[in-house]
């Protein structure tokens, strides 16, 4: 199980942005979704999740709204902004290049 702590901060940002691209949700839901979608492989520790979310909000890539949820409880819901969408594309691109480069190296035939 690769711990999120092994991920570079930038990768975590990218993952969070992508999750939020699926729809607005609060912090807890983001970490659950990520865990679920990655098959329990990627788990963000709570202590890293919220600072990362706040940083993304500070950069203007996500925006937050306080909404009253289904149980009458107030929660902070994050959603992706237009800027964030652009940032996500950029990071996804560079991640793609990085991972295919690593794949090429790993797949080299040893003699």
């Amino acid at each position: 199980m690769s711990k999120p702590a092994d991920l570079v901060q930038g990768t975590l940002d990218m993952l969070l942005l992508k999750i939020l691209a699926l729809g607005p949700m609060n912090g807890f839901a983001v970490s659950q979704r990520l865990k679920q979608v990655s098959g329990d492989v990627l788990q963000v520790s709570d202590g890293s999740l919220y600072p990362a979310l706040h940083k993304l909000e500070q950069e203007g890539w996500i925006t937050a709204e306080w909404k009253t949820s289904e149980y009458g409880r107030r929660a902070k819901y994050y959603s992706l902004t237009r800027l964030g969408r652009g940032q996500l594309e950029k990071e996804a691109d560079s991640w793609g290049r990085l991972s295919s480069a690593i794949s090429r190296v790993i797949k080299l035939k040893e003699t």
Partner: protein
Amino acid sequence: MRPEHWLYTIPLRLRSLFRRAQADQQLDDELRDHLERKTEEYVAKGMSPQEARRRVRLDLGGIEQTKEKCRGARRVNWIQDFVQDLHFSLRVLRKSPGFTTVAVLTLALGIGANTAIFTMTNGLMLHRLPVRDPGQLVELLHHYPDEPEPGFNGFSWDAYQAIRDGNHVFSDLIVGSMNFFSVRGDNLQPQTVFGGGVGGTFFQALGVRAAAGRLIGPEDAHMGYHAPVAVVSWSFWKSRFDLDPGVIGKKIVVGDTPVTIIGVAQHGFYGPSYEAQQDIWLPISLGPSPGWGFGLLARLKPRVSLEQARAEMAVVFQAVVNSPDADPFVRRMKLRIEPAGNGVTTPLSQMLSTPLTVLMATVGLLLLLACANLAGLLLARGASRQHEMAVRACLGAPRARLLRQTLTESLLLSLVGCVVGIFGAYFAAHALIRVFASGRFIMGAPVHFEALTNPDAHVLLFTLAIALLTGLLCGAAPAMSASKTEPGSALQQASRIGESKSRRLFGKGLVASQVALSLALMSSAGLFVEYLSHLRNLNLGFERNNLLLVTLDFAHSGYNAAQFSRLSQELVTRLDAIPGVSSATFSAMSPMEGPGAASFAFSEDHPEKRTQASINYVAPAYFETYGTPFLVGRDFSARDQTGSPVAIINETTARDCFGNENPIGRHITLSHITLTKGEKTYEVVGLVRDAKYNDLQQAAPPTIYPDLLQQGFIGSQHSQLAIRTRIDPGGVASAVRQTEAAVLNTVPIVRIMTMNEQIDSSIVPQRLIATLSAGFAALGALLAAIGLYGLLAYTVARRTHEIGVRVALGAAGTDVMRVVLRDALWMVCAGFAIGAPLAFWGKRIAASLIPDLPVAGPLPVVVAAAIMIAVGLIAAYLPARRAMRVDPMVALRYE
């Protein structure tokens, strides 16, 4: 970042800044919400509620830390933090008023002293004239190579023409001089105003604008003509005319000439010198005139360097002084060109440049001392706040934050000290300038006080800079140690915190450095004090005690030569009759009054060998009154009045003009005397010992004393009456006044002072340096003593437990005291090791700046060292006694 990104994030950041409380509350809510949801999930998975709650908290890892990290993610944090730090620092400092007061005063002293001296340095040496392109301005001077002064800005008509026509380096040549004018008018009291005679291009070339009316231009001053107009300064307009626009066209009388005021110069312009304030300018006619009276300023052409100008002009000037009919003495003149962007050379700036340099060095050392002192204080305080720092670190404060907090405290202290210091500096600078100006009247110019003592932008910037540096310097060490707090160990050993070795050593190092600086300050003070006493005890060639000097103003006396001769003799006779008076005499100048007349002298046998001699017209009994012995010959007598001109000369003149032969009966000729144009020959009737004249530090110049009564000399305004008394001179002053008023009823007394007072007024800078550096040294020693005491007391308090153990194990009280004293002496000796080389090096530098400084003996340094040891022992006494009295039982329980 793209512009729209900025636009979007700015509101967010601003909100972070201003709605901090609300944002914090929201953060809290958010995390709580998360914890609740996670708890529900765990409970749904089958955990018990308590277990679930515990697990979620463990998962989060610490709510405060997480909150701190979230806050850290918002990048305007540093401003919030800074404001928070500031609030906290203020609270902390308010809670310990004693410490705060001492710290602020220490800093105020160091910073204020530096600001005061820098204000004057800025005014005199660094400030740029308010003219166009001051960097291009230069002034021309002529001087004789063996003369010590920089020279005189005055040129003959021929020289001016040659320079004007023969140069390729100046884009403008400006004629201007400085003079006193007597001014009167309708609503204007008769008064003496300092101003200048200027050529037609003066204002234009300097780039000065008119605040009202127009300024003197080429049409007002050209060959053979000068218009009857005048321009006044802005402050003259304000003080005499209340900024009345009707001043333009007003008629006033300057000297004996009616002139019309045609304009006012721009605000802040007072002529080509910053410290000599000119208030009125009149046009001069540029035409042949005798003497060397044209003052010259010039503007260098854009790509011409000063060196090029000097080289070219040296050649041109050489051609002028080597013209066939030039006086042999004139041939020796050389030209100097100096930058004038900071104002032309004036006697005040010459007099003060060295003292100011010395003082700047001294106060710089004092500031370093104050910094070391404060750093030690802060370090000691920091040690007692380790507990607090540990708690902060545990709560999640990053190291940088702890560092910033401590630095903010010391910066706050230094800023407050800076403000206090600036106030003090303002008054100090005023007082200093007043003292400087109280010295012998500085020939040539009234001192422009405001210019010299107004803190302008440069000074304030300088003060702020040193305040910041001081704060950083003092706070650096405590801040570093605060940021290195190990929370665990610090919290455990709350009260028995053993100090780290490095911190102890650093504290000792600070004290040692204070001792070193104090040593340097004291030895330099000792040097200057010694120099002053040397000056005061010089052999002057005359007797300085019990001599009363009275200055009389003969300008409006209405006497002719015969009346003057008769009345002055009568006065002398009546003064002789006053009980307590041994003798009285008249002269043109008294020895330390200032520079007087000078002339070229040569003997009949060697007319080509010319000596520049000082001329002082004296009456009979002059040498007896002053106590200068005759070597050969006689004094003037009543018979001389009807005979051929006679004079008395001093040893140096005799040597220069007559070699080793007896000068009595020989003749000496003076030429280029301003009073009687042409030459005059005197018979030498007496030879006296050399006596100091005008300058204490220089050897006596060749001096010639013609007979005052013979000349019927009432030429210059003032004459000197000298009275030798058997008792204290003050005792006869009133009798002298009455007698003088009775005999010379049209002649007012300008001032009365004793010879000692006159000598003192001629060495004001030296006295000031000696006094100030002694004062600073004393303060420095006090600071070092306080620093030493503080550290020792603190150490003893911290080590009370250890001392208790030692005593319980059998150590005697005296053993303990010896340990403390040894500690103190070690620090003092370490200070010597650093300070002694510093002191010697300082001595060498001082010797290079001040000529004739007696630097032979190591006496000042040795005396300073002895004082420091005494100070160290005194400072160590109390803590040592306290250590000795430690009761082991109390100490062992001491927490």
